[in-house]
């Protein structure tokens, strides 16, 4: 049905999409996880309330989240060019994906950590645990199922956003869908890319949920 050039292009698109989603999610967590932990502990009911820190993180998170991703993508072009050396292609797309996703991730981490039973935290305190010990040995451990479930959601959302980056030459399946399906009216290629995106999403989702459930001992 497709010639070999098209097939290898689609294959490359798949790899680029996986590369962008996975690397962006990982880097997004590198920023978002510590930010989420800080939001949790600096909140007024947290372990170390700090209104100043909380307000700053809260503001950063809200400002970034209120910029639509497509606009953020364009807004960040000079910054991306400085870091990656170019503003198109899959590596360049990782920059806005990380910056756009980190505040969402931080909020999801915050929500997960706040689900941890207050009583368990109090028990750890009564044993003489320090704040650092409570973060690493209680909060992150007790919340891990919820954290992984949310990481799965983040990966799926980032996958979708990476496709959106295709409209400005971001590489990956989204890029192919826009260039062939939209500009050249090659509906068959568009449909194939969409099906592949759905399949990728399913694989990410099912793997993530399987890991989360496997680690959960609560139920």
């Amino acid at each position, binding site marked *: 049905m497709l010639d070999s050039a098209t097939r290898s292009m689609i294959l490359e698109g798949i790899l680029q999409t996986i590369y962008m989603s996975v690397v962006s999610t990982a880097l997004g967590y590198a920023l978002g996880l510590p930010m989420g932990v800080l939001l949790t502990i600096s909140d007024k009911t947290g372990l170390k309330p700090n209104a100043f820190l909380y307000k700053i993180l809260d503001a950063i998170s809200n400002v970034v989240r209120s910029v639509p991703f497509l606009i953020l993508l364009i807004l960040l072009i000079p910054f991306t060019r400085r870091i990656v050396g170019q503003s198109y292609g899959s590596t360049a797309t990782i920059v806005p994906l990380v910056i756009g996703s980190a505040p969402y991730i931080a909020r999801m981490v915050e929500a997960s950590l706040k689900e941890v039973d207050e009583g368990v935290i*109090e028990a750890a305190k*009564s*044993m003489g645990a320090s704040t650092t010990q409570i973060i690493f*040995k209680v909060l992150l451990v007790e919340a891990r199922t919820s954290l992984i479930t949310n990481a799965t959601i983040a990966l799926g959302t980032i996958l979708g956003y990476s496709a959106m980056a295709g409209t400005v030459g971001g590489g990956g399946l989204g890029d192919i869908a826009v260039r062939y399906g939209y500009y050249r009216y090659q509906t068959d290629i568009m449909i194939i890319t969409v099906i592949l995106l759905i399949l990728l999403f399913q694989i990410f989702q099912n793997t993530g949920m399987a890991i989360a459930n496997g680690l959960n001992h609560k139920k």
Partner: protein
Amino acid sequence: MYEIEIKNLSKKFETKEATVDALRNININVEKGDIYGIIGMSGAGKSTLIRCLNYLERPTSGHVIVEGKELGQLNEKELRVQRQNISMIFQHFNLLQQKNVIDNIIFPLTLQGVSKKEARAKAFELLAKVGLADKAKSYPSQLSGGQQQRVAIARALATNPRILLCDEATSALDPQTTASILSLLKQINKEYAITIVLITHQMSVVKAICNKVAVLEDGELIESGNIDEVKLPEDKFFWIDEASRPTKKGLKELNKEVQNHVG
């Protein structure tokens, strides 16, 4: 020297609308080896009071002196070290849900940096002591309430504390399980010479194991002393409803059961 000395302790909670006097001018002396019961209705301030004994709550004024050390004068680090001497068990057990039984018991030891091997040996010994040697690999969600409280007790004993605080430790358990937990507490008190302070709203708990008792009403201490000397206002307000008030016979049976458990 008293094991725990509570002097002129008051606690106020400030809210935007009002100041609440949770505790007013409390004085209690707990001697080494006591099983000291503090009884009161919900809202009487007993949860706040017991949390002042390990400074999970900071008193607004007054002193808490544990083994000669005034807790209010310790910095955060010293306080954390002191807390390792004062274990606590809770109404809802508060076990780590994502760790199995043995890792829960090891937990306070790992906080202190005890080697995994040493901690495991200690944990297995304690697990046998509380009668759950076969549950090492189970998770809390797979255990009954009574079993979870036994695990919590083993966890509390792991650090060789001098004092055990019990925060409504049997309130979520049925009468039979309550009796077995109480007898375990009594056994611990004898065997390890651990001073126990417990708070409860159940008169039967106080009568079953305490040698001293204080009655807390609306943030104030209205009675305190040896269990046989204090006049306990049993009929006044301590049973939530008629159904939960044990008959004289029921109380006798509970006592007998505790005695049987202790052996």
